[in-house]
């Protein structure tokens, strides 16, 4: 039963991942990414990582995809279907991806062919177990990571702020001038 469920979830994840990287409509690609991430969350649940699965649903499906959709919206991505632009790179990229898949796939299959994953006796990583582990053994990486997250978000705020607040900057109007640029180009596209 677990094996059947795992195979189904893997097929869903891989199939929707193929659609993420090939579909022409950008918004549809973002929505297929939701399907992929949800299937991966199901795989986490099957692999006895309960808390990671819920964090995946909350942060990836909830926050990251919404951020990506906001990025598509703010950059005025065309929502309709559009002509394929990436035909020029498709063949070498597919070659590299096939090589990566062949290398990694043969390595893991050859290395772990006879190993069985016993999930019946595995400790389920519930919120209690994972929380105790994070806040006792891994508390220093956790704190460092919180500082990293703070630095990244402060950097994001600084980057996305309009540059009109520069004191005495001669090209202080660059921000507003360049802001008018995307408008006329967006109508042309």
């Amino acid at each position: 039963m677990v094996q059947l469920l795992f195979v189904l979830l893997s097929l869903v994840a891989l199939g929707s991942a193929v659609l993420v990287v090939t579909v022409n409509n950008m918004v549809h690609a973002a929505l297929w990414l939701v399907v992929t991430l949800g299937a991966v969350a199901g795989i986490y649940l099957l692999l006895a990582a309960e808390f990671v699965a819920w964090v995946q649903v909350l942060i990836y499906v909830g926050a990251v995809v919404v951020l990506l959709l906001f990025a598509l919206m703010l950059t005025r991505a065309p929502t309709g279907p559009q002509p394929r632009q990436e035909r020029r790179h498709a063949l070498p990229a597919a070659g590299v991806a096939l090589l990566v898949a062949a290398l990694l796939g043969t390595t893991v299959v050859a290395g772990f062919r006879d190993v069985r994953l016993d999930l019946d006796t595995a400790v389920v990583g519930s919120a209690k177990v994972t929380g105790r582990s994070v806040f006792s053994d891994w508390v220093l990486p956790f704190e460092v990571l919180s500082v990293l997250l703070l630095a990244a978000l402060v950097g994001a705020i600084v980057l996305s702020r309009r540059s009109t607040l520069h004191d005495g900057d001669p090209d202080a109007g660059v921000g507003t001038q360049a802001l008018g640029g995307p408008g006329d180009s967006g109508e042309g596209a």
Partner: protein
Amino acid sequence: MPLWWPLLTASLLFALGVYGVLVRRNAVLVLMGVELMLNAVNINMVAFDAHLRDVLHGGQTFALFIIVIAAAEVGLALAIVLMVFRTHGHIDVDALRELADRPERDDSPDLAERPASAEGHPAAGQPDRSGAAR
């Protein structure tokens, strides 16, 4: 369940992410490929955590850490993408060639083939707007 099932799934997902990063030209779609690769790594982490019976739960904890790093990365990348869009009018990663290594300043072949590589993006061929970017 054999251990190589989740590992093979993760490998194929990683390869699909590599394909997405290489083939896409929109910067946001490139980021989606990066997300696929990070998820493949997380599947590996969780699978080995379950297999090795780690008493410290290092695999699941590092999967959580990778998710947090991915969130930070996407937030920062969104700011950079919006900055690029504000200054260039497009987010085509192939057309962003200001830092390209050109042999000569005057008769650069890159400048000649620039409109061809940036077709479909009217603002890409105007270097004065990109010159305003810092």
